[in-house]
């Protein structure tokens, strides 16, 4: 187990290093190293940002289930859940960082905030949620930290105190009381991170693929799918599959499985409404999905359904839980990736062309932003369709962020006394 863990750490460290090198390259040369251009301005980074916001939902599900709905069997995994909530909220913000053209000017967010902009609100809500999750984790773990301390590599154990059993009991009671107060405060933020993230996209009338009231509910459904699955995986790493956690795993698997159904319902409901009219920009987004992005659409739906099936039937075995959680997350990842292309490849400026008795709409091409091709084989400067495939730099940075986040998550789970008493 120890060797496996060390190997995982080593691999993740190498990936993180590659990602950091890639980001330094991107900082030096600019975002030209990505495959995004003026007609297609957001790509893999923003898709992953939305994905991480979704995976941060685990803490919400668990804590609200315990303290608001009184589901006591989830209590042992609450610290792990809130650690994942913290780490993925941070991951979302970290993921948006390489997408920024001028990271050196990020302080402008504080100096000149524009409160009409939902990106600013998303930043505020996400950081508040991350801080709340960190506080929540600390509150939950306070008695255990006092009892066994935080073990930091090269530093040793810190914050350990010698206490009588009475004192520990008092701390435990206090932690319980504070968690009860914190849970309802954190809950609105936990819902808001998905809602505001969705609003960043859903408010844009120029992008019919996003525009509308249905995006925020689907974001919440996607979060309730990915979040519990991530908590299952994280607590399997920490605790393994134990008899006393069976109920907790089953509940999380059920929440995740049910949310997939809700997500697919809303998704296809939207598809149906859009396709019925047989024309227009909304209709064209659906046609674009089926024409150009059918493979990604197939991956999202097949993996989501597969994951639901496994989670709903095989929640009693480690293999089932792992396979189901992974499948569901892959499905959500594809779902998140598919947020981007149909939004950009339906050009908003469409001009009607009237030819005698016929008429059609024509997309006004956008200047790409650099010169491509050669003298004899020039590529168009103005284009109304951008075939976006993430560049190697984008992929390296994305994997690097994942590796860094996993390292921090594994390190935190190791350092913090999240293990239940009596087992180590």
């Amino acid at each position, binding site marked *: 187990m120890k060797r496996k863990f060390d190997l995982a750490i080593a691999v993740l460290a190498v990936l993180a290093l590659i990602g950091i090198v890639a980001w330094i390259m991107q900082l030096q040369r600019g975002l*030209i190293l990505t495959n995004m251009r003026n007609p297609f*301005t957001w790509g893999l980074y923003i898709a992953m940002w939305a994905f991480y916001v979704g995976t941060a939902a685990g803490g919400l599900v668990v804590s609200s289930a315990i303290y608001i709905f009184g589901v006591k069997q989830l209590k042992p995994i609450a610290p792990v859940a809130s650690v994942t909530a913290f780490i993925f909220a941070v991951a979302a913000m970290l993921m948006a960082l390489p997408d920024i053209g001028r990271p050196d000017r990020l302080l402008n967010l504080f100096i000149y905030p524009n409160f009409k*902009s939902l990106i600013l609100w998303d930043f505020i809500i996400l950081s508040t949620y991350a801080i709340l999750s960190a506080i929540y984790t600390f509150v939950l773990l306070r008695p255990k930290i006092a009892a066994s301390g935080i073990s930091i590599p090269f530093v040793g154990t810190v914050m350990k105190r010698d206490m009588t059993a009475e004192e520990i009991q008092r701390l435990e009671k206090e932690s319980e009381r504070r968690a009860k107060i914190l849970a309802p405060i954190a809950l609105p933020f936990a819902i808001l991170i998905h809602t505001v993230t969705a609003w*960043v996209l859903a408010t844009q009338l*120029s992008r019919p693929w996003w525009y509308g009231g249905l995006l925020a509910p689907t974001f919440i459904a996607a979060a309730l799918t990915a979040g519990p699955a991530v908590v299952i995986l994280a607590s399997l790493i920490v605790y393994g599959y134990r008899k006393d956690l069976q109920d907790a795993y089953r509940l999380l698997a059920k929440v995740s499985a049910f949310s997939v159904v809700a997500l697919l319902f809303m998704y296809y409901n939207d598809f149906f409404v859009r396709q019925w009219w047989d024309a227009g920009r909304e209709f064209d987004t659906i046609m674009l999905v089926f024409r150009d992005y059918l493979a990604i659409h197939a991956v999202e739906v097949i993996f989501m359904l597969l994951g639901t099936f496994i989670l709903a039937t095989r929640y009693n075995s480690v293999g089932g839980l792992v396979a189901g959680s992974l499948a569901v997350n892959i499905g959500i990842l594809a779902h998140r990736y598919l947020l981007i292309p149909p939004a950009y490849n339906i050009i*908003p*400026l469409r001009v009607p062309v009237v030819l005698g008795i016929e008429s059609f709409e024509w997309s006004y091409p956008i200047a790409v932003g650099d*010169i*491509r091709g050669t*003298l004899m084989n020039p590529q168009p400067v103005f284009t109304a369709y951008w075939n976006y495939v993430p560049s190697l730099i984008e992929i390296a940075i994305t994997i690097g962020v994942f590796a860094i986040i996993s390292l921090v998550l594994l390190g935190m789970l190791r350092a913090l006394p999240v293990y239940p008493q009596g087992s180590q």
Partner: protein
Amino acid sequence: MVRYGMVIDLNRCIGCRSCAVVCKMVNSVPTGTWWQRVETVGSKEHMVPTGEYPNLSEVFLPVPCMHCENPPCVKVCPVGATWKREDGLVLVDFERCIGCRYCLTACPYGVRQFNWQDADENIKQGFEVAGFEENWYKPSDYKYGYPIDHRTKDGRLVYTKTRPRGVVEKCTFCVQFVDQGIAPACVRGCPGNARVFGDLDDPNSEISKVLKDRSTFRLLEDLGTEPKVFYIPPARKEGRGGVNYEKKV
């Protein structure tokens, strides 16, 4: 209160793209980036009519920034780097933009452009693609464009020849000229005199008179962005620009 706007008469546009080129020249627009586009509506190639003979259409549509009254780009900018000045010009502060590109997503007209790399690199790349020898172009050499940095009254940098990498730029209605009382370069450079620029709030300005006399349309009016660039729709041309309607059914 001054409120600047533009009228483009599509009957007069000959699709020569002079406006796009003169815009690039005076505004020092990097290679591959265009503040001003002119395309033949409905056609894959510029200057090629669309449709099948005899049902042909060849309408040239120049698209600068619309300088909307209700600009989505201004609303989405998290740091207020793009803003609508009192005279209605929508400008970008090169020193404040953080390069999140949310405004490129929000703008329905596709006029916003991002500096994906150093402008010098863009120009070098352009020469390379065009088949010039290596080192033919030196970044330290002369740069085209209006030579002086321009700041608004409150000191915000809205025009500079050396474009910072990682920021957004777009048509400014040639703010550096407008502030000196000169019309934008595309208005002055149009050989067909298709453009009128002026104060929309002044009933005696030329643009107000044109708007009063002619029927105009704006692009994507249903989005509620209220553009300040107006178009005079092209009449179907027969003979010498005259319109002949059949009297018999």
